[in-house]
């Protein structure tokens, strides 16, 4: 065995494994370092895997990938202390045939090892339980990594840092600065076990259908962020995610916020009698387009969360951007190898591929979401409360004539929000999201 690899990848999450799989298939020698006991051992996400890129990596992946349920139903709920208004959409078309709507609920402790195994079968060397502490430099060029093991210095033409949101390597390489607290969200999640039939009955599902539910406003005590429930085969993924500065402002810790969420009358009923099987916490890079660091330098590429590639709009996409960036990084390296040029210049097609794809285009489109959310706290507190209050008044049965009720309702609305203000807010919302 030669002591030098074509590519060393740090992190066997979706980004790292996608890159490793692509590179190994082209016959490049690839080593992947993963600090977890096995790929995915400590990884978590909310729960919906968007699979367009996965289907490119592993055609007909659904025949073998350990995904849980195809998502045929989406639901967005707005909570106040005692009420909930929700928008729900389900479509029979999403249920027609695989890959359905390219969305599947999944558990990372099963999905990540599977994808890593694919890369291994293609010839990549996956080394778990091994932390990479640093990069090895040759002048200004990255030429390897230092793994925390005896004999752990490994040379490679290119290094891919796919080491997730905290990417030490990106920092060590000077590609990005410390994050500000408003661009990171912290999440806490529980996997709650329930019998299959109970999940299907309770959530109105048949067979392997699944639902993705998001809850805003009082679900997370009015903080910037939200709560979620995704259905798996025999478990629910239940969690909350809010920006770090919101936690600091509210002086609440993620675990307590999750407990609060689970006790909300709307949530309590959905998770009733479930048994908590796992608890985990993680960060999400939510800064969007403006926070994407410099993603490459001589001999080094950043992929996935390490490059801050998360679409934190209403979609909550991250794994697909991670797999896309892993794929593009690999393609760029394959091209660079043909030219024998692993400099910034030789690798720059990575940047171009990202920019031409949905990855950067989507991030760009939603680049204002994060700033809007922080500048408009009323959307998470006052407005939802007002809206739910009005809806409640509307539906509350009394002897009052409907006409009177509706007039009162309008009066109440106006005392809280002038029609002009409402127009302005709606316009802002439209510009940010549409």
């Amino acid at each position, binding site marked *: *065995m030669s002591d030098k690899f074509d590519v060393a990848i740090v992190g066997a999450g979706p980004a790292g494994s996608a890159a490793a799989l692509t590179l190994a298939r082209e016959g490049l020698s690839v080593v992947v370092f993963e600090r977890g*006991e*096995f790929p995915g*051992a400590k990884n978590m996400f909310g729960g919906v895997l968007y699979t367009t890129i996965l289907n490119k990596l592993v055609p007909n992946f659904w025949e073998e990938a350990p995904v849980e349920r195809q998502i045929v139903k989406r639901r967005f709920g707005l909570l106040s202390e005692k009420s909930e208004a929700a928008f729900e959409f389900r479509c029979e078309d999403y249920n027609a045939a695989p890959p359905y709507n390219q969305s599947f609920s999944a558990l990372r*402790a099963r999905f990540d090892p599977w994808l890593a195994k694919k890369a291994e079968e293609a010839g990549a*060397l996956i*080394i778990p339980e*091994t932390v990479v502490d640093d990069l090895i430099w040759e002048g200004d060029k990255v030429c390897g990594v230092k*793994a925390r*093991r*005896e*004999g*752990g210095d*490994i040379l490679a033409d290119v290094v891919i840092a796919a080491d997730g949101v905290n990417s030490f390597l990106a920092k060590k390489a000077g590609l990005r600065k410390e994050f500000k607290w408003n661009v990171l969200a912290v999440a806490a999640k529980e996997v709650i076990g329930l019998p299959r039939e109970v999940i299907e009955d309770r959530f109105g599902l048949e067979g392997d259908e699944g639902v993705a539910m998001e809850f805003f406003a009082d679900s997370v005590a009015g903080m910037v962020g939200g709560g979620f429930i995704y259905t798996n085969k025999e478990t629910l993924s239940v969690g909350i995610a809010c920006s770090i500065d919101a936690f600091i402002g509210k002086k609440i810790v993620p675990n307590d916020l999750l407990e609060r969420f689970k006790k909300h009358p709307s949530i309590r009923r959905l998770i009733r009698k479930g048994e908590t*099987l796992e608890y985990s916490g993680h960060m999400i890079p939510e800064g969007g387009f403006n926070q994407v660091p410099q993603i490459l330098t001589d001999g080094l590429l950043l992929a996935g969360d390490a490059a801050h590639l998360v679409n934190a709009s209403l979609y909550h996409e991250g794994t697909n951007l991670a797999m896309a960036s892993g794929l593009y990084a690999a393609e760029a390296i394959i091209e660079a190898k043909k030219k024998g040029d692993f400099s910034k210049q030789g690798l720059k097609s990575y940047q171009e591929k990202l920019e031409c794809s949905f990855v950067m285009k989507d991030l760009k489109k939603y680049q204002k979401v994060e700033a809007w959310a922080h500048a408009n706290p009323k959307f998470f507190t006052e407005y939802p409360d007002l809206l739910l209050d009005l809806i409640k008044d509307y539906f509350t049965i009394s002897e009052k004539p409907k006409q009177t009720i509706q007039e009162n309702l309008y009066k109440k609305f106006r005392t809280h929000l002038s029609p002009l203000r409402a127009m302005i807010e709606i316009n802002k919302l439209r510009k940010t999201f549409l």
Partner: protein
Amino acid sequence: MNIAVCIKQVPATESKIKPAADGLDIDRTGLSYVVNPYDEFGVEEALKIKEQLDTGTVTVITIGPEKAVEALRTCLAVGADEAIHIKDDALTGGDALCTARVLAAALKKGNYDLIFFGRQAIDDDSGAVGIHVAELLGLPHVAGINKFELNADGLKAVAHRQIEGAAEVVEARLPAIFTCQKELNEPRYASLPGIMKAKQKPMTVWSLADLDLSAEDVGASAAKVKLEKITSPPVREAGKTIDGDTAHAVSELVRLLHEEAKVL
């Protein structure tokens, strides 16, 4: 010196264990696995001896499902030279003596001077297999050793074994079997080159037929001990936390131990 170490893959020590639906196994979903910690002492001791003598081979042997190959790789990564993986569906339902018969058959095929086992496997907590094998092979054994020394002539070894309040110093003529206890050594971590090389080291796979054994010798029908069911232990309810200032709490504790629990 030819050294063999019998190792078993077991659920990690921090695993949550609950019975499977049929009550005949534990629920294995989501478990992660490790090399039985006691077996690691055996591997380490074997490697130390090989290094000290600067010659010989260390062979690790396991009986287990496909997945058990990971445990063998782990041992190869820290420095074992060869691995033997015995797998056969016919082995399900066997007891410790069945396992021992299979291992004895495999060990007979090699010419081992020293054979290490763990003191016990932390899944079945049986502590029997190594000693069973010794008897089946007619070899001397020392169980639960925490110190090991090879005599200069290489014909005998002296081992210490922990007993209640004392240590027995046992001399055994080789070939012999030793089952390893904590304190024997500090198992090493795999080096990176070690991990990489492990992928290329020889891995022999044997079925029962390769060992001239059949299901009647070592399978469920040969088992003298049959697992009826696995249940959860009774849950220990958290009791009282005794509040109040320390002096009060302490005298209350003594009172409770004396009057309520009646243990003092």
